[in-house]
């Protein structure tokens, strides 16, 4: 059982603080914050999510820059507490629509109300937004979502296509639309995070897709939903080591999941037969299914790096990225980074003529090259030339002193696994009942690395 729960801002102020058991001495929030801020143990610079100071265990998760913390004196399951912290943040987000420091500060009384029902004397009672609804009486105070910088996975939909009304995903589960009527709608997001490591010769060393089907329901009366996936979907791979068995099949063939897990509301009765998930979605946001794929897929980007030495104190780096996804798709917020030799003193950049929305930077402090591109259309090439000046002669091989090149990006309406929601069926209450259904796909780079 946990002893305390609190939320700290980036500066370390308590935004909410709830003591459930009174067995942890005062000042735990300060002790925790100091420890996290000045972490210097085990050679790392970042505090692990769980640590012990003077017999008190501190658990924390970071959510939109805030620290959600629990303390305990007992030897608990770390998974349970960290999962709980994540769920608390999700419940709060369901209620407030937008979760950030400002909305928390404005709604702290509501948050206290939630906290009282979620945990009693350190024992979890419920984290279901649905069940909590009947115990919560405060009305959320909305903050102006329009002016907020987009945060979190849902926000990625706001940039690329114009399909989504911007407010939908920042809507509280309890608040009504202006005009008093609730809009009947349901969102199903297929979010895939991809990790690839390319060898220096461009060969794929490892690749993995970590996918989630996330749902957020604003349907009244909790109708049953059927979610049909690819019929040829299969789960489990013999042996587990056959990463390359399917090499070259990237353009066709079945979707093979290594493994997956499901939200507790999901019924799998017909899943084995027709790959259909049946569920009564509870209110709020939740993952219907998480899956993992190591089947080879076509990487959306190829990275080419060339380093040419030009005399003893100079070198040129040529970075080339090629978008290999279809031309009707656009990737957003692309950032290419590359550590340069520590003795690099100056870098001058040369972009392609006519390049739009691209910026370059040399981060002096950590000797890192950064190249950001606002948009990249499918099937296109982009090149950056960087001339490096060294403060000392390089000893030998520059490639051993620089790299690897890493990339982050977001590609809306594209998913490399080709997992699809074939249809989304809502049990009809009446003939006129026809809620909005949004099925959205997005791909994000998790660890996208090319060695040089």
């Amino acid at each position, binding site marked *: 059982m946990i002893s305390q729960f609190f939320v700290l801002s980036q500066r370390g102020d308590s935004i909410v603080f709830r003591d459930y058991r009174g067995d942890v001495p005062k000042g735990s929030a300060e002790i925790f914050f100091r420890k996290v801020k000045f972490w210097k143990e*085990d050679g790392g*610079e970042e505090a692990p999510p769980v640590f012990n100071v003077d017999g008190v265990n501190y658990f924390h*998760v970071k959510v939109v820059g805030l620290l959600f913390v629990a303390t305990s004196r007992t030897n608990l399951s770390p998974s349970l507490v960290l999962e709980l912290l994540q769920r608390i943040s999700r419940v709060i987000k369901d209620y407030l629509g937008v979760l950030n420091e400002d909305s928390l500060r404005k709604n702290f009384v509501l948050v206290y109300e939630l906290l009282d029902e979620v945990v009693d004397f350190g024992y979890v009672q419920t984290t279901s937004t649905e069940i909590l609804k009947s115990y919560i009486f405060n009305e959320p105070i909305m903050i102006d979502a329009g002016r907020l910088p987009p945060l979190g996975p849902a926000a990625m939909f706001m940039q690329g296509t114009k399909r989504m009304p911007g407010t939908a995903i920042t809507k509280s589960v309890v608040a009504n639309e202006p005009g008093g009527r609730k809009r009947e709608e349901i969102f199903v997001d297929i979010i895939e995070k991809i990790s690839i490591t390319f060898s220096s010769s461009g060969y794929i060393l490892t690749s993995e897709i970590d996918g989630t089907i996330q749902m957020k329901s604003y349907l009244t009366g909790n109708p049953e939903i059927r979610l049909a996936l690819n019929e040829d979907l299969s789960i489990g791979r013999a042996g587990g*080591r056959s990463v390359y068995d399917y090499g070259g099949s990237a353009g066709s063939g079945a979707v093979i999941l290594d493994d997956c897990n499901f939200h507790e509301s999901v019924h799998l009765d017909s899943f084995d037969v027709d790959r259909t998930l049946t569920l009564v979605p509870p209110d709020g946001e939740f993952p219907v299914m998480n899956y*993992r794929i190591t089947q080879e897929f076509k990487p959306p980007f190829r990275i080419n790096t060339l380093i040419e030495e030009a005399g003893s104190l100079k070198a040129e780096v040529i970075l080339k990225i090629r978008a290999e996804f279809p031309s009707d798709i656009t990737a957003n917020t692309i950032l290419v980074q590359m550590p340069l030799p*520590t003795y690099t003193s100056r870098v001058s950049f040369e972009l392609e003529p006519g390049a739009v929305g691209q910026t370059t930077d040399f981060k002096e402090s950590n000797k890192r090259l950064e190249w950001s591109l606002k948009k990249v259309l499918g099937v296109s090439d982009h090149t950056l030339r960087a001339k490096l000046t060294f403060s000392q002669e390089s000893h030998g091989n520059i490639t051993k002193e620089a790299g690897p090149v890493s990339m982050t990006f977001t590609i809306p309406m594209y998913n490399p696994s080709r997992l699809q929601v074939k249809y989304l069926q809502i049990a009809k209450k009446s003939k006129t009942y026809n809620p909005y259904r949004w099925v959205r796909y997005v791909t994000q780079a998790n660890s996208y690395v090319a060695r040089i």
Partner: protein
Amino acid sequence: MFQSIPHADAILLKRIKIQSMAPPAQTHRSPSPSQPSGKGEVSDLKMQLRQLAGSRAPGTDDAKRELFKKVISCMTIGIDVSSVFSEMVMCSATSDIVLKKMCYLYVGNYAKHNPDLALLTINFLQRDCKDEDPMIRGLALRSLCSLRVTNLVEYLVGPLGSGLKDSNGYVRTVASIGVLKLYHISASTCMDADFPATLKHLMLNDRDAQVVANCLCALQEIWGLEATKSEEAATERETLLSKPLIYYLLNRFKEFSEWAQCAVLELVSKYVPSDSDEIFDMMNLLEDRLQHANGAVVLATIKLFLQLTLSMADIHQQVYERIKAPLLTLVSSGGPEQSYAVLSHLHLLVMRAPYIFSADYKHFYCQYNEPFYVKKLKLEMLTAVANESNTYEIVTELCEYAANVDIPMARESIRAVGKIALQQYDVNAIVDRLLQFLEMEKDHVTAETLVLVKDLLRKYPQWSHDCIAVVGNISSKNVQEPKAKAALIWMLGEYAQDMQDAPYVLESLIENWEEENSAEVRLHLLTAVVKCFFRRPPETQKALGAALAAGINDFHQDVHDRALLYYRLLQYNVFIAERVVNPPKQAVSVFADTQSSEIKDRIFDEFNSLSVVYQKPSYMFTDKEHRGPFAFSEEIGNLSIGAESTDNVVPAQRIEANDKDLLLSTSDKEESKGSSHNDSAYNAPGYDGSLAASSQADLVSLDYKPTPNVPSATFAIDDLLGLGLPATATPPPSPPVLKLNTKAALEPNAFQQKWRQLPISISQETSINPQGVAAMTSPQTLIRHMQGHSIHCIASGGQAPNFKFFLYAQKAEEPATYLVECIVNSSSCKVQLKIKADDQSTSQAFSELFQSALSKFGFL
């Protein structure tokens, strides 16, 4: 700063002593506009609340809400607003539930430190407990139980009693946790009201699954704490693990929330099924839990499966195979924090059964954006799963990390390569890789690699030729880290004949003696120069003289002593000196593990807890009273750890002292080992006794023990502990008849300490009378029986058929203690005994006495 100032009109307050709390630390921070921070504002609030208290004007509630919010906001940021307590209470007469909730929150926060004020609230809370709205009843009851004021417990019993019988499930969930709260405020009140029995009834009958779960949690805590005081509670605690209850909970399993499921799974994992059918039934029932999106449920299920199958090796392995995919999925889904918690558990499993995961090594490759603590776990897993078929790829990957710009990561990766090299048979390629690191000319890479090359050479002396060629090219000026420097110096001394300029490199290092800050390096320098001298006397003589002179004048005791020892040895006889300082060596083949297998097993038993993340058993980081509902039995485990790990805890510390050297012994200690292999040197004819004695004294102070080649590790350890060699050789004279002190007393801590320190003097298996077993309805019966024979129990635990006891006795006439670990298997009637004694000569006599006492058990 924020002392509450009684207002002139504070008639009410006259009776109440207001305790001012220490000013909160963060009040100087600039508060956000909505958060009042000063004294003025607190008294402002007080005034405004007072005005509203009696008002019935429309809109009053809204105004109150705003004020209450301000008060709670102050409370959150640490401003003491206890001075408005009475006003808050006065304002609480409302039907607005939001207001009520804020008021309850406020009251709960300040009641404990203002018990007099808390009395004010009892009235309205009690009234609300009878409200017709179940929500209000629940809220009021929860707040009432949260006051944490001892004087007020009498007001709790009534509302709690009716709360437990309430028709509404919500109220009953609140009431069941309320009982636990009451227990923590006043255990006696709770027990006197017989609430635990009511909880038990609810647990077995309530239709609301959350009530059942809360009762279970409350009972686990209450009986866990009571068990140390009363036998009855200990029995009750045992019944939580009885078959009917476990089956009852499993039958209702699907009704529980995911969190309650975790609690039930944790309980079930302590249950011992009677046969394998039961095990398979349980596993089939719960298998779908492995596909749950909540990592806590999955880990709790895995723990249960692992515990259930512990004695079924093949099924146990199948469980490993089965849980692999779900664990990997959990690691890659969810937030980085949850992923870390799961990864820690995966790490534990990989370390236990690396071969099962050896094909999955690619999952343990590090991603560039992962935090260091994750990478470190992954590197350890990669090291563990490396075998003939995947080593090449793993080492190739690790070499990429070694070239990484992230220095701690590069270091860890090099160490990982080294560890793989040390655990493999075919190290050819790895040695080449390591040597390539030296050519990278990055100081931190060179430093780490040197340390590893040294260790490698000690295991594979046959590689010396290749290594020395590369190491010889390293300029000692580029090596600054003490450990790396020490490694280089060791190699210079050890391979002086192969490294052409060894004497000169050593000489230049000795010239800078004064600047060398690390005593470790200076010690190595002394040894290396002496070794070099034996091989190449003319070239080294000058350096040796300088080193001995500098060493003898050194302020560091160990350096001084070692220099003096070498000087005297050399003065006495160079050949003998060589045999002492540089005897022929055997390659090191065994690696010390940093953790004993007992500690690892203990951590495994505590699967799905912080022990796994911290990589230490709970007794190392948790106070006794917080070890959870099964604290007592855990303490026994703790004791047994203390016992069996003696021979491991100490090396672990030594390893730490040696800054995590990969091999157990540093080069010096290895030399001492070498000398022990060669101990005939000490019996060499013509060996002057007096010198031997004096040098031996020096040897001891330098940790060069001429220990005879003792097979048992414990002896050496006792030595390290400074206990002196136990009287191993001399058999004890036959002891007089042993009499035990009937009033022996020993503190649990003292027991634990002794148990850790003493070696096991007798370990044997015996049997117990079947009648005795029949009499053993609970551990208590045996404990009482042994007490009649002046043998006292300090801790006991376990369930049928396995009971474990820790007992002690003392000699009647002198304070010599005997400690016993006794494991009784009631189904096989076998008893395992481990006896430790202060006076080892009498342990046999004691053992006989103990067994005779045991044999009488059951004939009462």
